[in-house]
């Protein structure tokens, strides 16, 4: 592994890149969708149910399903289907957390905001989103860690990333290689989890932090 440090760095970078890109795409889809279903409760169970079903499809099966469709555009293998799959898998934690977070804003605050004459956009921007942000970021954190694992499997459709070690190790019956791939993926997951936790803390409004500290 030490001999291959350049390759390790490259594959790690590739891995992060796939996961990061998928989150960058998934967030602007999932968060507004999550907010939207708090405004139109009648769709909430259907949207969350749909995202749940997506989650139950095994990743290998999903890659297989996408293969014939994307092949039409000559993109059946490689990074494109990997990123699409990760975006789909991210939806459940992102939508669910956004939905829960917005719904958990105390009704008295929403009432106060309405009663003082904030329109629905101001209400979202000044009250609901700031209060919901920590939980929304927690959803992104779940999605990121989960996607690091799934991205390892995406090596089978040629997406690259650290999954390459695992895949090649299995093919060559080379346990040390499998192990080093698995360890690297785990380390990456732990680091990303830590970074997201820090982000979660950073975006928590100051007043809420004070409140939590005093509640203890």
């Amino acid at each position, binding site marked *: 592994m030490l001999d291959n440090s350049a390759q390790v760095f490259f594959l790690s970078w590739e891995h992060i890149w796939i996961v990061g890109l998928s989150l960058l795409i998934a967030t602007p889809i999932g968060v507004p969708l999550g907010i939207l279903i708090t405004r139109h409760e009648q769709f909430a169970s259907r949207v969350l149910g749909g995202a749940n079903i997506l989650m139950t499809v095994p990743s290998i099966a999903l890659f297989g399903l996408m293969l014939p469709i994307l092949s039409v555009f000559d993109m059946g293998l490689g990074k494109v289907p990997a990123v699409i799959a990760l975006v789909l898998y991210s939806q459940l934690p992102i939508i669910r957390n956004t939905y829960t977070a917005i719904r958990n804003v105390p009704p008295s605050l929403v*009432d106060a905001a309405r009663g003082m004459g904030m329109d629905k956009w101001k209400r979202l921007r000044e009250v609901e989103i700031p209060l919901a942000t920590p939980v929304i970021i927690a959803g992104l954190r779940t999605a990121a860690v989960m996607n690091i694992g799934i991205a390892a499997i995406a090596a089978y459709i040629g997406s690259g990333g650290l999954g390459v070690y695992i895949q090649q190790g299995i093919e060559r019956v080379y346990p040390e290689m499998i192990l080093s791939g698995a360890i690297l993926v785990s380390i990456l997951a732990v680091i990303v989890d830590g970074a997201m936790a820090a982000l979660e803390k950073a975006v928590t409004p100051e007043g809420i932090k004070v409140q939590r500290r005093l509640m203890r």
Partner: protein
Amino acid sequence: MITYESVTKIFGTGRDAVTALDNVSFTIPKGEIVVFLGPSGCGKTTTLRLTNRLETLTRGNITIEDQNIMDMDVVELRQRLGYVIQAIGLFPNKTIAENIAVVPKLLGWDKKRIWERVDELLRMTNLEPELYRDRFPAELSGGQQQRVGVARGLAADPDILLMDEPFGAIDPINREQIQNEFLKLQAKLKKTIAFVSHDIHEAIKMGDHIALFDRGRLIQYETPEVILTQPKNKFVADFVGADRALKVLGLMKVSDVINRKPKNILRGEDDAREALKFLDEKGFRYGIVIEQDRPIGYVNQKMLKYESGPVREFVEPFPLFLKERTSLRDVLSFMLMYDEVTLCAVDEDGRFGGTVTYNDIQKVVRESYADEAESREDEVSP
């Protein structure tokens, strides 16, 4: 001025329909506090929420300064009406200053004017601006948070305030204090206020008028005195409570019953025998001894018998003195506590102002209820 005209609100439709308000009409006069009072689910909060269109009218009209609220832009309407709710309505992610600044900011005031106004309001509500401006709501006590809530409602200097059980979540001692502060503020500001409460004591204290609701109907709309002394029906009488005579006393002050020129006055230098004769002749059971305009105590026949010399030597001092503003409820309580039937009122410098006797108090209570027997008979069922 806010006018409610045949206001009806029905929640839900068809078989699930619930009538929350049924044909309610009354007017809140300019510059007055009207307390919406009643048990939970009586429609008082709904009435308030209809006023700033947090709920939508089913039938009827609400007008503010002769302008129908349905003809106004809903956001403008709400920005025009100050809205104060329990302390939990402060935004925890905003500082105290930002919380207060919400409506001025929505109205697009410039920054300097907003911050000046915030400091002015903090001082008005007895919060030191330097200390509290940049704190967060979680760092303040319940009473302080509620002061901020009031300041926030007053921020854009609205003519009308809607207050939804604003002091409901505060402990009794702080509540008393913040109510007093608020009344003092109102005496200066003269806002038109709709004030929801479920607490009869608060209603009597705060209200110029009380609108008493029950199951969606306005049962009685009157001043606190009339509600207490002439309850319209059994519901009102029950709601007001069996101790309403005491509550009436809570509304009345020493100045309402004071006897400024009592006849049984003695001077400190009067001789005991003379004094005794005076009391016997006039048939007084006791005399109040005054020296240099100050009441020093009282004497009765028993204390003076077989004595000679100036009465000041035999005086039994009063346990305490009343002020003109002392409520009769407190006076009665003092009388019971100290076993006295007469107490003296004094001015700020301790000079004698008059007496209040147990009989005087009994008389005003009796007078208050004199016409009750009649009004109970021609009671109209709503």
